[in-house]
């Protein structure tokens, strides 16, 4: 494929709004391809980030047929059954720390995901079938990945965003499940899509306990297909990108020097070494990234250029193993990547990349232009408000320094676009007219700062509320807060999830900055042949970050309430009914006459017997032959007798009923 064709292709894809995952190198389009790569990166807060990147691609069906040797059958069938154009599915546990792990690099803007499950999908089906396809897809995915993705099936769980910058295709659906617990049962099916699974290659070091005890891990599956739609037959047919990002704290070996970064190696993080590459992989590389902040610090300490020569005898850190190549960024003072080719290693000579620090180092990571947080205000079970607060992280008036010259902003009178996308479940009834914005503590008129807005209010038990707003905020602001009020709704008794008292989660909001692109400008032009991981980093990505998941406590009823209400009401009604009936058939005159002549009265046979019985029961002598006087005690004994009778009657009824039921 020549260069012109490639350009045309990427133009086509870009114009269609695809993230520019395009045809790659010479292999694409003619044969299946599989690459595996791993990026390791020390983080400023003594943790280590490891990012696995597996990419499988299959040529078009029209060219290659429907039988594959590497591409997973399940995914191919999924694409064809649901006519998928693009899906992105992520399983995440833990929260990405934007302030310490970076918020302005490709890695974080692509791979930092909200906790739980998030699913984006776009289909090539007529608009009226999109929802049905989405529902079927959620079921298929939940079967494929052993997760409760099928909860996204209900129309109250997903929405159709329109303004989110990366997904401006029509027919997009988005849903997320913040409370989904992610564990090995989700990782195993994900690994099954790799040709070598975790039996060989880089995935062999995925030791489950060490991954899941980390601070953050996110497994992602991004599927782009050009099998259908207007650009059918162009570029690679289906591209499946699987990434796994983990942040793990290596064990401290030396506790005496606190400021020293921990020394670590692959085996100390994962407990295993890399036993060579997967034989089916075209590329198998491990990269060690030293990010920009660290490079700057290193140069301050005298390491002029962190190049291959200077590496062997530098006084600050030591690498185990010699890198095969150094991939640096174009501009000085940028991050560098040390490349290790795994194909030189084998089972008896595994790769165990590590870094040993000799001097304490402190650096900071690249931060997003604004730090976004979201919190709840108000108290009680009736109403509250959601606040999203943006705090400028760059002291120089919100304008990031040198490498953002691409953004066409001047220092004075300039504005920054911020897109906020938030989906709220229907039982949190947001009043969009109460939307208020405070910039540096002052209220602003909304029309001054909003460029575009797309709001779809929630419908009870039908659809969630969705808010997409493009703000234009002044560059020199320190902070901005967006507040919107809501009422808490009531759910039907069987709509409550188990453990309803825990509260209800509002999924993360997405805050993205379309004016800023996180992309690494690397020297090598031929990266797509040499590293798809770095190739993906070079792509233009909007900087975006996810806010926290909110936990809203709703009024939870006592779940035995319906029965209590039924019994209580029925008893009251029965009482009322009985006394009314008695009053109706009461003969007052006759009673009075009776009362007068009561002395001469003789008790009947049955009451007599009953009194005897009750006397016996009370261990009184039965030989009290006195007929019961009409004094109050006797009347009370009658009452208790009657009660006893009733109880016996009910018991007999119950027994008869029980036998009747048993016979059934």
């Amino acid at each position, binding site marked *: 494929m020549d260069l012109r064709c490639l350009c045309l292709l990427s133009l086509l894809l870009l114009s269609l709004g695809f993230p520019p995952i395009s045809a790659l190198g010479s292999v694409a389009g003619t044969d299946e391809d599989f690459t595996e790569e791993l990026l390791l990166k020390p983080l400023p807060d003594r943790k280590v980030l490891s990012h696995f990147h597996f990419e499988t691609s299959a040529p078009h069906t029209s060219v290659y*047929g429907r*039988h*594959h*040797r*590497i591409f*997973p*059958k399940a995914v191919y*069938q*999924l694409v*064809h*059954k649901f006519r998928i154009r693009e899906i992105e599915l992520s399983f995440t546990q833990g929260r990405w720390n934007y302030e310490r792990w970076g918020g302005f690099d490709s890695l974080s803007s692509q791979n930092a995901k909200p906790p739980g499950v998030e699913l984006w999908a776009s289909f090539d089906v007529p608009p009226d079938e999109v929802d049905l396809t989405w529902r079927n897809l959620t079921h298929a995915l939940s079967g494929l990945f052993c997760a409760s993705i099928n909860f996204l099936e209900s129309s109250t769980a997903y929405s159709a965003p329109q303004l989110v910058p990366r997904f401006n295709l029509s027919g997009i659906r988005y849903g997320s499940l913040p409370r989904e617990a992610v564990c090995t049962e989700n990782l195993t099916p994900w690994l*099954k899509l790799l*040709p*070598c*699974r975790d*039996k060989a290659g880089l995935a062999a070091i995925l030791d489950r306990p060490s991954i899941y005890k980390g601070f953050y891990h996110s497994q992602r599956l991004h599927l782009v297909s050009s099998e259908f739609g207007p650009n059918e037959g162009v570029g690679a047919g289906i591209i499946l990108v699987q990434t796994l990002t983990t942040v793990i704290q290596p064990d401290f070996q030396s506790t005496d020097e606190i400021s020293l970064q921990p020394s670590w190696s692959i085996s100390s993080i994962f407990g295993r070494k890399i036993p*060579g*590459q997967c*034989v*089916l*992989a075209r590329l198998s590389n491990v990269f060690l990234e030293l990010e920009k902040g660290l490079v700057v610090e290193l140069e301050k300490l005298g390491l002029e250029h962190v190049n291959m020569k200077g590496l062997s005898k530098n006084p600050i850190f030591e690498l185990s193993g010699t890198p095969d190549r150094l991939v640096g960024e174009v501009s000085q003072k940028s991050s560098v990547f040390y490349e290790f080719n795994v*194909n030189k290693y*084998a089972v008896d000579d595994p790769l165990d990349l590590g870094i040993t620090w000799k001097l304490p180092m402190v650096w900071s990571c690249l931060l997003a232009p604004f730090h976004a947080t979201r919190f709840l205000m108000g108290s009680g079970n009736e109403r509250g408000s959601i606040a999203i607060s943006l705090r400028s992280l760059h002291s120089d008036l919100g304008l990031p320094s040198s490498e953002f010259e691409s953004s066409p902003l001047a220092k004075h009178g300039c504005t920054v676009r911020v897109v906020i996308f938030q989906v709220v479940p229907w039982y949190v009834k947001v009043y969009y007219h109460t939307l208020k914005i405070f910039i540096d503590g002052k209220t602003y008129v909304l029309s001054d700062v909003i460029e575009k807005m797309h709001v779809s209010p929630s419908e009870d038990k039908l659809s969630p509320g969705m808010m997409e707003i493009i703000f234009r905020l002044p560059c020199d602001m320190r902070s901005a807060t967006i507040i919107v009020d809501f009422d808490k709704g009531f759910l039907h008794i069987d709509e409550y999830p188990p453990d309803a008292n825990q509260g209800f989660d509002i999924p993360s909001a997405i805050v993205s900055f379309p004016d800023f692109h996180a992309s690494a400008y690397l020297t090598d032009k031929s990266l797509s042949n040499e590293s798809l991981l770095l190739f993906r980093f070079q792509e233009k990505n909007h900087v975006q970050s996810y806010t926290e998941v909110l936990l809203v406590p709703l009024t939870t009823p006592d779940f035995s309430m319906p*029965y209590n209400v*039924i*019994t209580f009401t*029925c*008893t009251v*009604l*029965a*009482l009322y*009914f*009985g*006394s009314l*009936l*008695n*009053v*109706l*058939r*009461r*003969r007052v005159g006759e009673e009075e006459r*009776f009362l007068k*002549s009561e002395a001469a*009265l*003789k*008790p*009947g*046979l*049955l*009451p007599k017997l009953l009194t005897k019985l009750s006397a016996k029961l009370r261990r009184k002598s039965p030989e009290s032959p006195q007929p019961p006087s009409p004094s109050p005690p006797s*009347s009370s004994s*009658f*009452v208790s007798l*009657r009660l006893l009778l*009733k109880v016996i*009657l*009910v018991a007999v*009824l119950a027994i008869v*009923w029980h036998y009747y*039921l048993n016979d059934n």
Partner: protein
Amino acid sequence: MADAHQEPPIREEPPPPPYPSRATKPGLKRLLLTLTVLLSFIAGFPFLLKSTEIYRSPLPHRSIESLSGSLKSNRPFLPCRFHAVFFSSGHRLDELAASIAAAMKKRRSAAVETAVCGKCGAEFNVTVTMMAATDDDGEIGFLDGDDEAVDEMLESLLKRRGVEGGGGGRVYTVFVMEREGMRRVVVGKHRHGWIVGRVTESEAVEMIGGIFVEYFINGGKEGGEVIGENGEFMPVGADGRVVLSFSLLNADPSDWVYDWDFQKTGEIMMAPVVEALAPVANITLESQVLYHTPKSSLSYWDEKLRSYVFSIRDLPFFVNSNEWHLDTSIAAAGRTRVLQFVVYVPSAKECPLLLRLPNGEISMTNGYISPTWGGVVVWNPPECLGPTQDPLAGRRNTGTPRKTIPSMDLQKVFQVFVGQLRQLFGLKSSNVQTTGLGISNFVASENGFTEWELDVLFRHHACSNLDSCVTTLGSLSRLVQSLPRMIVMDEIGKQVKLSLEAASLAQHNASQGIYDASAVSSRKARALAEDAFFHPSIMSISYSSFEHYFAIYMPFFAPVSMHVLLAAAKELKRYKQERAKYLASRARTQ
């Protein structure tokens, strides 16, 4: 409540002395009042029941029962007709026909009785004709030469003659040509066979009966063996679809990586099979290549054979379900049956791998089947037959070179798969080994299934589908009847009705002898019955139980009904007493 009741009951028992009689007629007001309340309660009861009723679509329980009864007493069968042709004169045709029928009966009585599915019924319709060896259109010859040519020639002869007579069903023919020379018995790929050579009449009769019963009726299975008794081994999903999932397993890709050209070889070789079986099942194909899939049990080295041997005894441990991610197919959701066909490429340290049969011989196909699961074939790559090389030699380079299974080898593998598919469908993998009747040859069909074998399958499937349809409907009807408060959706009722209609259509077609149509409509009947049984509204049983119902209404109705009943009883009693008093006093005054 208590004080309301306090007074009357005690004092009413004996008529109080101060009022031994009454002069006025006792009033009816209170009595009427209480009785009205009681009656209105009783009258309201049906309304309550009606209002709390659960919707249940009426199911035709009776017709389900009658269908299952009729199927039990009278097995459905597709009629077959048998036709013997003698190329010689001097036979008494009626006697011959009777004796052939008797021979068939004899064989049949030794075999399983008509209670089994897929037979031609209890009666045999045998006709015998004589034909001149010279046809109007040309010489028939001595039926020698190439079996296939003879087969085609006889087929065209039958077509020309138009042997189809009255009555439905398939016609099976055996030609007999008495002449000098070796006796040769051949079963063709259409619906006929022929006997050539020196043969006496009684031998011929015996042999014709044998061919009819053993092959044309039973499909080549000997004696007691019967194709999938009660449909247990029916490899067709409940919705009448089958997915054949072909997987190539590279046990250890670090030794060698083999690929196959499924597109060219597999699809082309399987296509006629798929087409031939279309009335029985809707078949789709899919393929995948998997890596790092060792088998789970070890083989041992056999010095004499210079290879690793895996004995049949260990076969249950061959399939390694932990590592073989064969998976069900997403494309085939629901109740579609997936049959796995696996080509296993052993790793260098267990290559060549052979399977040893229980009798000590080495399996010719190097494969085996597992009923209802699928089949496995071990394919030994050519490298391991050559000089043994250091398995670690090639490890350090950038990956093992990819090789493709040679097309010839792959064709052989797929031939084995077709044989395995035949076995999974209940036929013999190949009829050549049969020795029972001294059959010299079977003409094989291009699509793996001869016409008479397909007939056997159609018969069998039509019958067992009806069986399973009736069983499913019967269970559904029993389930619905046993749960009186279960919701039964209209759709279920509709499906049951359609299923019953399809079943009766299939029965009708079967009695008319329309093979394909009855197989298709019986499949539809079964699919609909299963759909009704597994309808989501049944699966998620959200019916309120009787206890629940009782618990909701009891707190109101128990106390209220007590009041109403007691009040009515008391008033009635009092009224009677008072009336008696009144009557008595009136009598006294008179």
